[in-house]
């Protein structure tokens, strides 16, 4: 029996030593993350400027023309009324944030990804996650928009200064 005991103890000691190092590193990472979170969350998600963040989803890159396309705006406004206005009001904060001035806070890609796949965004995008918490856990509905439709809505948002 003794022959067995000694190696087992040695292995245990080695394991404990490893765990200590690992725990230390983890602790540091957690602390660092916590500091970042505390820094960020001082500003409510709805007021944060995240123009560099393209979000997660099908839209990787959008080039906006200098001129606003009025036909797209018209279509986008109609789509917004039917599919979005139950929760988003232009003149006020409602179930979700107002789209007014959104182009100054969010990238075009982030906006379209949020329209096209809100569930994925809430799972993987920091800002989307914080917005969900800020707006009482009212998850944004996926309205099954096509990329073209989401692009029209984005064009309409460009007119909401």
């Amino acid at each position, binding site marked *: 029996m003794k022959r067995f005991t000694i190696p087992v103890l040695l292995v245990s000691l080695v394991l404990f030593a490893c765990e200590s190092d690992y725990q230390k590193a983890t602790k540091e990472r957690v602390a660092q993350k916590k500091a970042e979170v505390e820094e960020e969350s001082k500003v409510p998600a709805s007021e944060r400027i995240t123009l560099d963040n393209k979000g997660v989803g099908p839209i990787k890159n959008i080039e906006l023309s200098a001129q606003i396309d009025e036909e797209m705006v018209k279509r986008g406004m109609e789509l917004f009324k*039917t599919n979005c206005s*139950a929760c988003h009001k232009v003149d006020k*904060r*409602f179930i979700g944030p107002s789209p007014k001035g959104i182009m100054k806070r969010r990238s075009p890609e982030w906006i379209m990804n949020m329209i096209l796949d809100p569930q994925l965004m809430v799972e993987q995008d920091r800002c989307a996650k914080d917005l969900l918490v800020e707006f009482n856990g009212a998850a944004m*509905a996926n309205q*099954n928009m096509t990329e073209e439709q989401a692009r029209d809505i984005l064009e309409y948002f460009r007119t909401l200064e």
Partner: protein
Amino acid sequence: MNKLKIKIAIFTAAGLLLAGCGGEINKGKKSNGALSANVAEKVYIAPGEQDDYYAFLSGGYSGNLTVYGLPSGRMFKEIPVFSQFPTSGYGYSEETQPMLNTSFGFIPWDDLHHPDISQTKGELDGRWIFVNGNNTPRIARVSLSTFETEEIIEIPNSAGNHSSSFITENTEYVVAGTRFAVPVPQRDIPISDYKGNFKGALTFISVEPEHGHLDIKFQLIMPGFNYDLSRPGRNKSHGWFFFSTYNTEEANTLLEVNASQNDKDFIAAVNWKKIEEYVNNGGGEMVTASYAHNVYDESTHTATSTLKKEVLTVDPTMVPGAIYLLPTPKSPHGCDVDPSGQYIIGSGKLSADITVHSFDKMIAAIEAEKFAGEAYGIPILAFEDVMEGTVKSGGLGPLHTEFDNNGNAYTTFFISSEVVKWKLGTWEVVDRQPTFYSVGHLMIPGGNSRKPYGKYLVAMNKITKDRYLPTGPEMEHSAQIYDISGEKMELLYDFPTHGEPHYAAGCSADLLRDNSKKIYRLDANKHPYAVTNPADARVERDGNVVHIYMATIRSHFTPDNIEGVKVGDKVYFHVTNHEQDFDVPHGISMIGAQTSELLIMPGQTKSFLWEPKRVGVWPFYCTDFCSALHQEMQGYVRVSPASSDIELSWTVGGDLGE
């Protein structure tokens, strides 16, 4: 160490003993008809996996159709057809009440028996499924895209609509035959005048190819027999339809005895193409009738009911060469046609044998004008001239036959509780398996078409007894699934069904899966009371009628605070679901509303009536757990006295965010 070795030896020995015991137990179980592990695997659909086949089981007296998966036997949906269904509001909502209208007024129920899936060139095409209502004769068409009932047509001059609702092989017609002979037209005569005066109407309902809309093309006014079941000809026999009959004695009392006197009744062979031609050339007599035709429009989400006033009837003696009677022993029940269209199988339910007629022999006898007699001017062919073979099964009470894709037929035997497998052409019995208990219909997916999928067979039983945990005197009926891919049938699984299944229809999952609708598009919603923009949500008063135009999305109603409603008002809630995501319905119910809740699919509008009887502030709420904030999805209506002068007003959110 020696001790250890001994211990190991003891454990090993015990293990062997245990394994030995296990083997014995398994063997014992197998001989009792239970499953070995590899059989269980055949019906096991792992979590997240899907079944290979859809099965649509009739609900009998539930009035509804149920959707199952095979081989798992899991029930996916109950589709309301002839019965009010509070789960969705079908038959309760303002939009769907007209679906249950008849010439007798609103009828909230029927007895649904025989589903049949639409076909093109004799193969299932998965567009629609047709079903019959027995009691107040009706035929319904159910969409296999929305899995909703889209159309119901009442059948005049018919009673006990049983030899229905089977389709021709390009879905040209859905056919509805009367079980009970009745006076045609209905009139006040002694019941004892039955013989010669009562008639049996066989109704051919045309199916418009694009939308499936139903219209009675003609009714064949046959002798007053009982028309029990029917099947279309296919392939070479396409253009014919076959109906089994009993009570050719034309008894009007104690049929149990009096309708079993004749040694043979008939299978009636109807050349519908010939009659169609006769009718297209102006033949037939238009007579006064009264029957409802109810159509549900997917874009308005609303049904309309029209009362029709006349129907075209055809006297069979006026179309010579169109109808023949094939003598068939012992009150035949099932009347089934094999995938090639060559064999017509009559199951004499009071017999031990199954009679097989040959289509080719029938045509030869007709061409040779070899008639054995006539009934009311309709030629009777000689039994010997049309009969091709007899299956000597040794079972008792054959009822129904289905087919696989390898030249085999499978017949249920009610009295001896079994399914018998036999070979087409040689008529030899190759296998038999017990059912539990007293089997009625059976179903092989595609079994009533040119191309059956010969993998599974479902036997639907009339008696359950000890198959499941007892639930009082009334139990759901049992069904059994058999693997029929091998030479011998193998019992795989046993599952309870809903209502009383009679016939069923099944098809490959691939035929329907991708066409199954996920949402209704909000921009295609043409409901007159829809609000497609929440800014248009409002409340309007017209005398004492109040219309609430309401929108819903996770997780609020617009509006959710309504004032100015009075006792004695008729308040209509018209609720549009603004979700456009798959499987996000919202529900609504109002305290004191004398109707069901509504379950509204994404993009859909539904309405219900509430007649407030008491002053107060009354809540309504979402009945479907729609989101994390579902419990917050609620609102109030303030009800004032009838004499009140409070103006109508409505809000949502009040000063939220202002």
